[in-house]
């Protein structure tokens, strides 16, 4: 089977292994009104048990859930310096909640953001923040329900790596990267708006 991974403008083999936590015994749902941030309503986060029970492959390049990464950060020093450790986050996780616990995000060669549903546009804001506010420079990958028609927006929001959903053709998805030639507004990839860069 050919690869589902697009980096920049080509289909490439995936060197990374995505590590998933075990399923929780009981879904932990936070109730509306009990949390400061509304977005957490109904969205589960990893339990300590899940984090502790996640199995880490002993070698090779692995993408760990943020919570798991933070839990093992100290033990992983060696592998981090060998550029073997990447992280992945859900769209409802707050960058602010973990960024200060990571020494330097640019020591991570890969950050992935998982979008569970096509319609979840939080991934775009997360890309923007990671690139512009937190100055993340390395590979930024979209995983999950990633389809052709998000790619142009993902690219503009700072993503340079796209893992296309397994049942779709990555070659077809490549076309989505070039839906429009010159967009109006400044974003992550092209920071200046059109009126500043071409004579209108």
């Amino acid at each position, binding site marked *: 089977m050919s690869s589902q991974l697009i980096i920049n403008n080509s289909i490439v083999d995936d060197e990374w292994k995505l590590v998933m936590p075990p399923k929780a015994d009981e879904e932990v749902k936070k109730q509306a009104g009990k949390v400061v941030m509304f977005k957490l309503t109904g969205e589960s986060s990893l339990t300590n048990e899940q984090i502790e029970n996640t199995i880490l492959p002993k070698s090779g390049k692995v993408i760990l859930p943020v919570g798991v990464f933070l839990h093992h950060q100290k033990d992983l020093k060696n592998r981090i310096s060998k550029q073997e450790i990447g992280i992945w986050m859900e769209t409802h996780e707050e960058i602010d909640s973990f960024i200060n616990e990571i020494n330097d995000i640019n020591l991570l060669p890969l950050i992935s953001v998982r979008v569970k549903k096509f319609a979840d*546009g939080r991934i775009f*804001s997360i890309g*923007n923040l990671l690139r512009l506010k937190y100055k993340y420079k390395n590979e930024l990958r979209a995983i999950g329900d990633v389809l052709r028609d998000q790619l142009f927006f993902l690219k503009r*929001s700072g993503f340079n790596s796209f893992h296309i959903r397994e049942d779709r053709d990555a070659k077809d998805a490549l076309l989505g990267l070039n839906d429009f*030639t*010159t*967009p*109006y507004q400044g974003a992550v990839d092209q920071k*200046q708006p059109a009126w500043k860069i071409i004579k209108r």
Partner: protein
Amino acid sequence: MYKYDSLDQSLVDERVAQYKDQLTRFLNKELTEEEFRPLRLQNGLYIQRHAPMLRVAVPYGLLSSTQLNKLADISDKYDRGYGHFSTRQNIQFNWPKLEDTPQILKELATVEMHAIQTSGNCIRNITTDQFSGVTPDEIIDPRYLAEIIRQWSTFHPEFALLPRKFKIAITGSSRDRAIVQAHDIGLEIFSDEDNEMAIKVWVGGGLGRTPILGSVIKENLSWKHILTYSEAILRVYNLYGRRDNMYKARIKILVKALGIEKFKELVEKEWASIKDGPNTIDNSEINRIKAFFSEPNYKNNKQNDLKKHVTNKYFSQWLSRCTHSHKKEGYRSVTLSLKSNKQAPGDATSDQMRAIASLSDQYSFGEIRVSHEQNLILADVLEDKLYELWEKAKVQKLTTPNIGLLTDIICCPGGDFCSLANAKSIPIANSIQDLFDDMDYLHDIGEINLNISGCMNACGHHHVGHIGILGVDKDGSEWYQLTLGGNQGNFASIGKVIGPSFSEEELPEVIKKIISTFIKHRHPDEIFIDCVSRIGLQPFKEAVYGKKEKKT
């Protein structure tokens, strides 16, 4: 008005190609219904009761005669010879075939039109005052800022898939005709102490299931920062707005849940890192866009022959209701009423569209505006030509002198077309129009807004109608709930429900009782809404439901 350059044109052309390809993939089953849905919606395509509905964008309600002629042609060629102007100043076609939609969009693109972001969970068409640039009470023409926001919001990558739809309205007049307080973001441009253009920003207003008026988030924002500040608001909303329940997903719910102070704090924090960034507007850009909205070539015409015709009662009624004062002496703006009781409110036939396009070429510099009240406006008509215009427009049944009166009903397409509706709305509008077809009586009743929505999504703006009618579903049959005391403009308010709902048959009689109660209680020259504010709902309730018996 704004004219496309090659960049605007290529974006619209590329959209046509993109959409055509998306539709092909859907028809080939490469996209599921669920996956195609957000894509088609962001291109204005709904799947409705009888056929798809295509909503075409009319940016801030401004149309050229060429564009209106094209809309007429499209309605003949692909639809049933008419179109419906909506409360977002757009136009909707109710009967296109799904497979024709790419071709329709291709034709629209030839006259600088499209259906981009007319639906779906994204930033929608920016709306503004239909009298922008011509009304004497205007402080600053809002159209060029509206155009700047339009360009910025078109295919904005970060805000392509928001929790829910997002509506921005902008006004530049001391009298708000754009209901800015009922929008996700409402903008009021004013001139600050240093005579600089500044903006007052409201956030979190909206009608729909939970009607809420916006809260002020910024009293005085420099125009330079309008895009970065909006970006900060939208980012906070995009990240924190609810996505688990579509009825609680609008920004108003987030603002309410956090409180305006907390919400503002988050926005200001976000803004701090992007303020003065690349999307900050500068003088060269604002002047470039402003030049598209420069004054037309007005004639100096201080004399007019209107006096000759004022003895004609019908003309005189029309003159008082359907023409509006203009900043330029010798000119008036004209509203062509799409509210005759012979057609659905906001509908125009292809013949009417062509006639209006032609009238605009003859009398109003070839431009037409759509109002959120669903009428069409010729903004710059010489007073001298009003009689001539009236006679020609009359032939097309466009001169019903009811603007601002009871039968100038704002109305959504309702259960006859819309698959969301609980109840019909057009027949209700028509039955009220039939009941009040005596123009003298209508003029005596005076200014009053009656708005009808077929469901709580409130496309017919029933919450801000002086009288609001909402279609509700009760055990599978259609009922109508009545609100009184809603208002738009600077003193916007949400109407209050007066009591149990009514059947379709009861409704005209109920409206009659409400009007009679007003006539009985009004002070001379008092308008309906002022009377409701003064005497309260009780007299109206008693008139409609009867007096409650006192306990003995």
